[in-house]
């Protein structure tokens, strides 16, 4: 009996090594790896100026687009590495994914409109108009970063990581322990973030200065995927799936500004 099993396993291993036609259909759908251009490739002239302005707004949103921001977050708080990091909703993949249908608005949404949503929900602020310098700069920055990315193909690391369903129901009480051990060091035990001489260094993850209930990360599955791949900084993919689900459930169970669509 045992020998039979061993044989079967060897046979399977052989099949896997051989690969053959079984593997190729899967390979055809394999996501494409894309490298965004380097900073030195930003051209000079008005286009380059707009791209650079976009990067400043992106990394120091409160300073360069303060009137649209209602909390302590910047674009880079979620879109790490200046919008370049895979699985942190990178801009190079975002640009080639729009326009797209979104059930949140029940319409085909353009990238500029999508960015307006970031300001309204994640930044808990007032969306800039589509022809404002803020949106034009951010769209230009995204456009530049996506140069060379294939349209209509799945790119490795696009959007946020989609978590497999949790083995156990996400539990905020277990999540609280994960938070204390792995997150509180930077975001504070009270979740309100950390400052240095009044500058926000670690963004608040709940409370009045964090994202509102309408933001993508207010969904436990989205936050779990973000945490899994990115947190703690430089230690992405060290929390287990269950820990990521639980800590997301804990963070999203905490108070935060209301969804502006539900206030009136």
């Amino acid at each position: 009996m045992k020998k039979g099993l061993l044989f079967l396993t060897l046979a399977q291993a052989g099949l896997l090594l051989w690969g053959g036609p079984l593997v190729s259909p899967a390979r055809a759908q394999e996501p494409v790896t894309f490298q965004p251009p380097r900073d030195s490739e930003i051209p000079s002239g008005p286009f380059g100026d707009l791209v650079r302005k976009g990067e400043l707004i992106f990394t120091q949103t409160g300073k360069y687009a303060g009137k649209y921001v209602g909390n302590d977050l910047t674009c880079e708080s979620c879109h790490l590495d200046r919008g370049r990091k895979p699985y942190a909703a990178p801009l190079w993949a975002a640009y080639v994914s729009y326009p797209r249908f979104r059930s949140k608005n029940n319409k085909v949404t353009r990238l500029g409109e999508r960015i307006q949503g970031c300001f309204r929900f994640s930044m808990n602020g007032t969306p800039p108009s589509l022809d404002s310098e803020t949106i034009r700069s951010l769209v230009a920055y995204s456009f530049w970063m996506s140069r060379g990315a294939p349209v209509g193909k799945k790119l490795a690391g696009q959007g946020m990581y989609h978590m497999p369903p949790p083995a156990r129901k996400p539990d905020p009480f277990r999540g609280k322990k994960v938070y204390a051990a792995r997150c509180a060091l930077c975001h504070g035990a009270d979740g309100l973030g950390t400052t240095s001489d009044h500058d926000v260094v670690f963004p608040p993850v709940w409370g009045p200065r964090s994202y509102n209930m309408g933001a993508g990360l207010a969904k436990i599955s989205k936050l779990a995927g973000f945490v899994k791949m990115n947190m703690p900084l430089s230690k992405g993919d060290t929390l287990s799936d269950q820990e990521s689900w639980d800590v997301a459930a804990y963070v999203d169970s905490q108070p935060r500004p209301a969804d502006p669509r539900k206030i009136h």
Partner: protein
Amino acid sequence: MTIVRRSVSTLFLSLFFLPAMTVHAEDFLKQGKKIAEEGNGSPGSVACMECHRLNGGGMPSIGSPRIAGQTAAYIEHEILGVQKGTRYAPVMAGVVNNLSKKDIRSVALYYASVRTPKLPDVSPPDQALVGLGKHIAQKGLWKKNVPACVLCHGPNGRGVPPHFPYIEGQNKGYLLRQLVSFAFLKRKDDPQGLMRGIARRLSQRERKAVAEYFASLTPPAAAGRGN
């Protein structure tokens, strides 16, 4: 009526205790300064100022760090780490072995309270490396999963109390040696091994570049204040 009486008695009590508490803190500082100046009096004890100077400017020539204005919580944590052996520091281990918990608290409070200008480093900033160092410090080296240093150490590395020390304007010998210690030696007092992972993933040239960059800056008078 009762409330008035209570507040009067509270006032009376605080008048009585407040000076006592102040004296207590002053005692700590005085004791700390004494240890910094001459050691704690136990046989063979060495004064902190031998390497860190009385005002905490450190000694760039031997890579002894500037500690003036670093938070007391951080200094205390590091001395305890050297005692326990979680922080690799072959020279300092012999010096702090005989310090009591109270000695450590005192000397940490003392060095957190002192201020000193930047001391000249062993060489001018290496211009061939400062640019690379600045890029890693301000933007990160994410392809190696290294976030920008300033994301945790604060703008320009001015520190985020209590866990993240200021590194802005620290001397280059110290900075490089710590990165190497985190990477290969036995410095393992960093929370969650964050620095060990980061330092290991950098090349020696990159570690050197980061040290050159932060050493080229002007240090803050004290670590940035927290919330």
